[in-house]
């Protein structure tokens, strides 16, 4: 039967895994191998995708992918309640790998020639997604990188120096499940490890999900780079009655294994000591061979060793470890085959060897290699891991998921939660804090104004300080609480683990627009800031989905536009400000959907890539992390207010106060700004926005959206805007601001991710759409 035909709660054993290419490889890497047992947990509200429990964790995949997998129904997989998985064995003395006085590498240069004292040591921090790498990175380096509870928070390398060891640098790599490149972030990690040659690897393994995590560990060990395993989340494992026989695991794997809890900073000092030792003495993994001559007649074993011998000379020349190269060639990895530069004859010989192995083993090449690794892992975990009871965290997650991903409750919950986020931000908590902030700024401006008058400051300088700087910076500063609030709620969604559920629940809807469920995460982050949102699109496994998501991100109204909406909504739509702001967010989403549909039928034809994702347990975010995030957001905003907005305020004040002969003008209409902006104004005449001051504000918004408000504040001064513009024209202006070109930081990020042509395309497309929509508003209302 097909996997998609299973009933909820039914268990099955995988018989075959169909499909092809990188997706199939990814499914195998995630543990969907023939022989593996799984249980169907649930379907998403619209019947697709589905969630299965395999190797002790939850994985989501679409029905179309599940159709490619055949299974045979089995009795219910017994829960691991108190199951003593570890085989009883005699006490094993600690092998002492990676410890002073124990030199396990027999090669003489290993312990006679340690790296010279003071030589720079580089550690690559590698592990699966969402296993706590960034938490450990923060503990090791004292950095403040954002930590999330969503697979793929880290999308770029992050560098740091280990506290107290200035010579030791750590690189936090994006999370990967295997060294087979599936997503662009996995390519980033793989390239770093293979091309940059770090001195050693710190492999972080989630102790609550050892089987799947060790799959990457084995591939890292094949690279022959000195390595230490940090067994993270040991506190949770032990709290639920599980444990790991560290000595046994260390001796079986041949690398130091250090149990830690990165979140509680337990075991981290010991980890550093081991890591420094193996790096200085270049102690490589004692074991790199995971195939067994007796396994199914030794088909895989003979195949891999034959390829190793055949390609040894090429591996040496290409500086690629031969064991790693043999496994990748056997899996059909084209990147490795090209890097080795094998001759046609050698390629054909390799192919013959693999075909022979497939016939003997009864599995195709990819499945056979994945099976070989999981067989070894199973043997290791059987001897070393005492499985815990179902953890409190998992039980809690299952209960919460009954509501948040339930068939009838998932979508209403999503809308209620998102509605609550925006209501609390704009109507209650955020608005109250904003009023408080406004009073403080007003008081400070008043006091400063009186002081300048008392000190008899010249009118021009007085105007510069109050009308230029205070008015410009102050108008924007007042929105700090709203922005921090929205970021706070968005990060709570991510840190608790709900963001991954949103992806699961909305996948089917997004697929109709040509996107994958994973895109929703990048798009939701776009409500905070477009820059991290564009970066987050790297977690998408296909270039098509990534491009499409990036192009749609600017339609999600970022927090920098909040000051514009709030400024005009309060003046022109009193009592209905919340409604107007809500309408703007909806318009952004609707126009985004329309553009997505057009793109799907034109430049991005084809189907979105499959949706294979891990669902993490719900976790309560740490107060320390939340406070750190809030402070980061507030600091970033303040930095922005006192740099780009401060500069823009002074420049705008200067241009509107002086004419081309640098004489102070009596009438602002004679200023430099009025003359220049007046030339562009006719373009905006059809929108009812032909006023040069509006045009100036819109142009300044290209630097940062908040400057639109500060510029308007400086240009209109005490003028009553409601007497100059009608509410319809202002609504058109708000729609234009919502949709026109993203700020320079977002454009720069798009350029970096997709190239200059796409960045130019975004600017032109957004401006054109904004103009058309604002024009339509004027026409309709």
């Amino acid at each position: 039967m097909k996997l998609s035909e299973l009933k909820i709660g039914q268990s099955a054993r995988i018989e075959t895994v169909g499909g092809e290419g990188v997706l199939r490889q990814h499914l195998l890497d995630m543990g969907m191998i023939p022989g593996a047992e799984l249980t169907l947990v649930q379907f998403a509200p619209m019947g697709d995708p589905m969630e299965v429990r395999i190797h002790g964790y939850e994985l989501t995949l679409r029905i179309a992918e599940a159709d490619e997998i055949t299974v045979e129904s089995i009795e219910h997989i017994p829960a691991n309640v108190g199951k003593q998985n570890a085989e009883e064995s005699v006490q094993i003395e600690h092998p002492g790998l990676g410890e002073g006085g124990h030199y396990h590498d027999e090669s003489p240069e290993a312990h006679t020639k340690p790296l010279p004292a003071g030589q720079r040591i580089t550690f690559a921090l590698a592990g699966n997604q969402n296993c706590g790498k960034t938490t450990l990175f923060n503990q090791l380096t004292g950095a403040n990188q954002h930590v999330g509870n969503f697979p793929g928070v880290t999308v770029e390398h992050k560098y740091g120096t280990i506290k107290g060891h200035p010579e030791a640098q750590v690189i936090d790599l994006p999370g990967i499940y295997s060294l087979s490149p599936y997503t662009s972030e996995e390519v980033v990690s793989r390239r770093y490890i293979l091309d940059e040659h770090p001195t050693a690897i710190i492999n972080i393994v989630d102790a609550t999900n050892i089987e799947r995590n060790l799959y990457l560990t084995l591939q890292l060990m094949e690279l022959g780079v000195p390595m230490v395993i940090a067994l993270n989340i040991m506190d949770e494992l032990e709290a639920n009655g599980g444990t790991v026989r560290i000595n046994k695991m260390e001796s079986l794997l041949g690398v130091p294994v250090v149990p830690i809890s990165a979140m509680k900073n337990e075991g981290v000092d010991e980890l550093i000591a081991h890591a420094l030792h193996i790096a200085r003495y270049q102690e490589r993994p004692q074991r790199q061979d995971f195939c067994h001559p007796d396994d199914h007649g030794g088909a895989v074993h003979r195949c891999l060793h034959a390829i190793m011998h055949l390609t040894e000379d090429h591996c040496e020349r290409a500086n690629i470890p031969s064991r790693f190269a043999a496994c990748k060639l056997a899996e059909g990895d084209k990147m490795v085959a090209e890097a080795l530069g094998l001759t046609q004859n050698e390629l054909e010989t390799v192919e013959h060897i693999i075909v022979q192995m497939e016939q003997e083993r009864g599995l195709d090449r990819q499945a056979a290699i994945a099976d070989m690794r999981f067989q070894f892992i199973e043997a290791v975990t059987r001897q070393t891991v005492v499985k815990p009871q179902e953890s409190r965290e998992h039980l809690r997650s299952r209960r919460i998921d009954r509501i948040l991903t339930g068939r009838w409750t998932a979508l209403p919950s999503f809308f209620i939660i998102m509605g609550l986020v925006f209501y609390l931000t704009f109507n209650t908590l955020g608005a109250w804090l904003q009023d408080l902030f406004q009073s403080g700024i007003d008081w400070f401006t008043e006091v400063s104004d009186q002081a300048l008058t008392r000190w008899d400051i010249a009118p021009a300088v007085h105007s510069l300080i109050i009308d230029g700087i205070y008015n410009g910076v102050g108008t924007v500063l007042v929105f700090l609480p709203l922005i921090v609030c929205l970021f706070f709620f968005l990060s709570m969604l991510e840190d608790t683990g709900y963001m991954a559920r949103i992806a699961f629940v909305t996948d089917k809807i997004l697929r109709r627009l040509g996107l994958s469920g994973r895109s929703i995460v990048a798009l939701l982050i776009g409500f905070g800031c477009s820059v991290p949102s564009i970066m987050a699109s790297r977690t998408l496994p296909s270039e098509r989905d990534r491009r499409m998501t990036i192009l749609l991100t600017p339609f999600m109204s970022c927090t920098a536009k909040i000051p514009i909406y709030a400024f005009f909504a309060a003046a022109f739509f009193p009592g209905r400000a919340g409604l107007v702001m809500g309408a703007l967010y909806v318009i952004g989403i609707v126009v985004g959907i329309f553009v997505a549909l057009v793109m799907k039928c034109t430049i991005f034809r084809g189907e979105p890539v499959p949706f294979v994702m891990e669902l993490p347990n719900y976790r309560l975010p740490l107060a320390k992390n939340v406070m750190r995030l809030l402070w980061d957001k507030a600091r970033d905003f303040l930095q922005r207010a006192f740099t780009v907005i401060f500069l823009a305020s002074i420049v705008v004040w200067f241009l509107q106060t002086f004419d081309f002969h640098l004489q102070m003008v009596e009438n602002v209409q004679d200023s430099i700004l009025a003359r220049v902006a007046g030339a562009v104004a006719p373009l905006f005449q059809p929108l009812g926005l032909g006023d040069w001051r509006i045009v100036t504000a819109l142009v300044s918004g290209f630097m940062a959206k908040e400057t639109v408000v500060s510029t308007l504040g400086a240009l209109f001064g005490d003028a009553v805007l409601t007497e100059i513009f009608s509410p319809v024209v202002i609504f058109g202006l708000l729609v234009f601001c919502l949709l026109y070109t993203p700020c320079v930081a977002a454009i720069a990020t798009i350029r970096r991710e997709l190239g200059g042509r796409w960045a130019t395309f975004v600017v032109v497309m957004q401006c054109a759409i904004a103009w058309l929509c604002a024009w339509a508003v004027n026409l309709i209302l």
Partner: protein
Amino acid sequence: MNLQSIILLALVAVAFLVVAYRYVKRQKNSRGCDGCSCDCKGCH
């Protein structure tokens, strides 16, 4: 223009130049992605 006005104007001018210099320098170092309310310190 009296002395206190000149001092104040000079202070604003110096602040403007320092902030502008640092802003342009950071923009160059961070390939344009700077000053945004985002997490991407990795690219800074």
